[in-house]
């Protein structure tokens, strides 16, 4: 069995640390979220670690001020608190002033398993991609986390990084950097059906792909790791090669990941049968953890496989569809 994957936050902090040791302009601000690697960082580089108290709004404004004075700043906290709680600060102080600050969010989606709605962050893609000047990145493994971190250190910009709480198994083998510019990367080819996903759910997509393959359906899984700026034209051209496009996310469907893909296809005039798989539109107060909530939400691996099979089965093309759908569209 493979070694337990490193926590994404440790990957990021270690990479940042290596550069911060050489460059005192690199500053790390945490609103009281820790990490093993951060203990080392604090001990070695106390002047480059800033604890602003548990106040996310001030953290973002301070980061804007530091960046104005030439610092390369990473801000770091739990996903909901570094996005929803200080959304206007992100909009005004980082977005409108276009400050090169990296906003590192830990535990997106249902990552804080047992915590419930206050910690679940299922609207961050919808909110943050609505801001001009921002970039939104979702790594899915150690390599992609590392490469994105390097990019943030070396070419600072206003970026939002969506880290998972746990470490995730490897997806990339040295090929992430070359894929970075494109914004998406086919990580498992096969068949006529495309699943687009990212982060934690990308791994679930891969599991669904395995299950479908056993059932005789081949699907391609592609990591759409940069949801903003979205490579709309390239993505649409790519998607147009498939018969069906499926998006899989651990976000609300309104405005989220699948919504961004739908926008791209519609804007580029690519009409494909598309299935957007994501969380139902409600708050989750269930005990039982991430897997359980996903299961109950129709996002368990077998349920997903079944939903995809049904969606892509020829019969489904007329079923569950509006009577008034035109039989032929060309534009």
């Amino acid at each position, binding site marked *: 069995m493979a070694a337990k994957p490193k926590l994404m936050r440790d990957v990021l902090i270690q990479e940042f640390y290596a550069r911060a040791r050489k460059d005192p302009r690199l500053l790390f601000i*945490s609103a*009281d*979220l*820790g990490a093993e690697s951060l203990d080392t960082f604090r001990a070695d580089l106390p002047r480059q670690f800033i*604890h*602003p*108290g*548990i*106040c996310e*709004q*001030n953290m973002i404004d301070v980061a804007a001020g530091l960046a104005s004075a030439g610092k390369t700043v990473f801000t770091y906290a739990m996903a*909901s*608190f570094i996005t929803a*709680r200080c959304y206007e600060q992100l909009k005004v102080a980082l977005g409108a002033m276009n400050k090169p600050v990296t906003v590192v969010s830990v535990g997106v989606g249902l990552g804080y398993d*047992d*915590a*419930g*709605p*206050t*910690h679940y962050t299922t609207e961050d893609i919808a909110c943050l991609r609505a801001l001009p000047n921002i970039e939104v990145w979702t790594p899915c493994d150690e390599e992609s986390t590392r490469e994105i971190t390097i990019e943030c250190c070396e070419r600072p910009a206003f970026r939002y990084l969506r880290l998972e709480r746990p470490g995730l198994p490897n997806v990339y083998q040295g090929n992430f950097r070359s894929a970075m510019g494109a914004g998406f990367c086919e990580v498992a080819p096969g068949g006529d059906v495309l699943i687009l996903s990212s982060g934690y759910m990308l791994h679930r997509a891969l599991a669904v792909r395995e299950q479908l393959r056993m059932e005789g359906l081949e699907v391609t899984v592609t990591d759409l790791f940069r949801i903003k700026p979205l490579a709309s034209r390239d993505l649409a051209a790519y998607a147009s090669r498939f018969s069906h496009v499926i998006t899989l996310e651990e976000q609300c469907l309104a405005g989220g990941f699948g919504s961004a893909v739908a926008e791209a296809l519609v804007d580029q005039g690519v009409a494909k049968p598309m299935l957007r798989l994501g969380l139902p539109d409600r708050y989750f*107060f*269930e*005990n*039982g*953890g991430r897997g*359980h909530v996903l299961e109950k939400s129709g996002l368990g691996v077998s349920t997903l496989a079944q939903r995809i099979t049904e969606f892509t089965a020829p019969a489904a093309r007329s079923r569950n569809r509006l009577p008034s759908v035109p039989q032929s569209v060309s534009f």
Partner: protein
Amino acid sequence: MPKKATPSTARPRATTPASDTPPAPSAELLRELTGKSHWLRRELFQMVMATKKGHIPSSFSCTELLVSLYYGGFLRHRKGEPHDPSRDRLIVSKGHAAMALYPILADIGFVPPGELANFTRKDALLRMYADPSIPGIDAISGSLGHGLGIASGMCLAAKQDGRDQRAFVVLGDSECYEGSVWESAYFAAHQGLDNLVAIVDRNGLAIMGRTEELCRIGSLEEKFRSFGWESLSIDGHSYGEILPALGRLGRTGGKPLAIIANTVKGKGISFMENRSEWHNRMPNEAEQRQAWLDLETNTIAN
């Protein structure tokens, strides 16, 4: 030999003004409440150990505060009637310690006692962060800085309706970094919410270390006073100080009341006391044995 738990006499003494002090609690009540502390910490420890989920140190620093509210007669309620609209309100705004209420809620017949063993288990009632789907819980918790505003709304509604209802809010000291706390502080003072009590669990620790080292908080007593509150500091593990402090409710000349309770995070488990690294950690087997020994011995002088 295990290090003994810090005796609470090491904490700063109460600053309650001498005049207008409510009568001292009886020795009998003090004994009863001390027994409840002892009971609650053990219940909580077992509850958490069952699934290894929850926050012990944060719950143990406010144990005496919660016991005082429920068993000292301040949080008026009727046994078995969580949905009674006239019940006084309590929001544990440092929501990671709202779980400390569960054994009490079971004890007063708000939730089935059998649920304690199912804390955080699949499909069970009691969740890591409490919310109003649990009988007796008055607001959602888990995000810091909401409780004081929500409770202010409740207290204002009670006043408008002429109902004699109060609300108590337990805040973390680091929670008081959140600006929203101070926004609500203005509001409660201006509205004259003398039916509102904020109790700050001043254990001196955030997750990453000591508040005064991370980002100085200084005197919360002065801060609340400067925002127009009646404000006093006490030893938050001493019933002899907590009860008179709570007794000031209704004697504040129309002001909301802030009680800064100096406490020890992890109080009662020697090796957890005052150690921030235990915020998110679970004891191993040897540590569990030591912890249980500490809890059985109960060296806390309440």
